[in-house]
């Protein structure tokens, strides 16, 4: 039986973790990270490569004529939401992208895993859209012990919007920041 170590999807700046106490973390609840503006638009090429990986034959992703009539253009699989605001890890003259909020929550534990996601979509994401994301720390639980080890559950909520402010999606991400323990050993 495997332990569930699906990693947190890394965002701009990766997931290097800030250390601190639970009280430090609680003081951060409600904090909103500066809005991340994507440096690029949603592109059909990446949509096709992703659908090839998933083996998804949906006409909305492959047939421009169908997609234009149905959605106003070729759309992105909803699962690619996070990718559309990821920043390249290097660009000329730019400082490193700011780290994700989850990495900035001060806690004593050395590692983090994703345990759940909840996404709500208000409209399709179309080729040519340029998204931005605003992420807020919603909750840090008291210390809990699971089969992986002991640590704290965190949740963040992000709102994804178009450049004109139209909301596209709401994303709640649940994570476990933990110290691997005997119980978590395989």
């Amino acid at each position, binding site marked *: *039986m*495997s*332990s*569930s*170590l*699906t*990693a*947190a*999807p*890394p965002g701009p700046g990766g*997931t290097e973790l800030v250390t601190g106490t639970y009280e430090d973390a609680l003081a951060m609840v409600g904090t909103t990270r500066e809005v991340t503006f994507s440096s690029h638009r949603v592109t059909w090429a*990446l949509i096709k*490569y*992703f659908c*090839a*990986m*998933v*083996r*998804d*034959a*949906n*006409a*909305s992703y*492959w*047939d421009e004529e*169908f997609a234009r009539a*149905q959605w106003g253009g070729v759309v992105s*699989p*909803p*699962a*690619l939401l*996070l*990718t559309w605001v*990821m920043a390249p*890890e290097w660009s000329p003259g730019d400082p490193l992208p700011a780290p994700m909020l989850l990495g900035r929550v001060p806690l004593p534990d050395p590692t983090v*895993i*994703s*345990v*759940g*996601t*909840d*996404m*709500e*979509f208000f409209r*399709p994401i179309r080729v040519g859209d340029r998204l931005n994301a605003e992420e807020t720390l919603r909750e840090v639980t008291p210390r809990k012990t699971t089969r992986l080890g002991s640590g704290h559950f965190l949740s963040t909520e992000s709102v994804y919007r178009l450049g004109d402010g139209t909301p596209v999606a709401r994303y709640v991400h649940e994570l476990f920041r933990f110290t*691997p323990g005997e119980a*978590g*050993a*395989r």
Partner: protein
Amino acid sequence: MIPGVDYSQRYWDDVVEGDELPEVRDEITYRRVIMNPATTWDYFPGHHDPEYARSQGQPTIYINTMHFLGFIDRLATDWGGPASFIARRKMSMRNSIYAGDTMVGRGRVTRKYTDESAGETRHLVELDLSVENQHGEVCAPAVVHLRLPRRPGA
């Protein structure tokens, strides 16, 4: 029409609560896991570096969150058709899918309903879905709220 592309559409009117979705099986080769970083820009080493995965106590590299999400959405929209829309999807991650595993998707309609909250009548179904491995272990249970079109003339 492009050959091989899926155009078949299901209508809200024809769905019955309790309907089962067709099972979807997918063999996840090493190459397919490596396609995760390539197609989602997620370079976490657990998805491309077996040595790193072993240092985490994992047998080898494993698929990322977005691959799970994409497979769940595919399960829902393969059944619902290309004019269906994922309105909401909630997923938990319990176990990993490793290179060499087979992903098995299953699902069932648990509710058929309408929603007026967005200022229009939307026709939706709630699907209970699960992604299992070839040993029958549930790796990622999910609930999807899928918007479906009405049957023309309905």
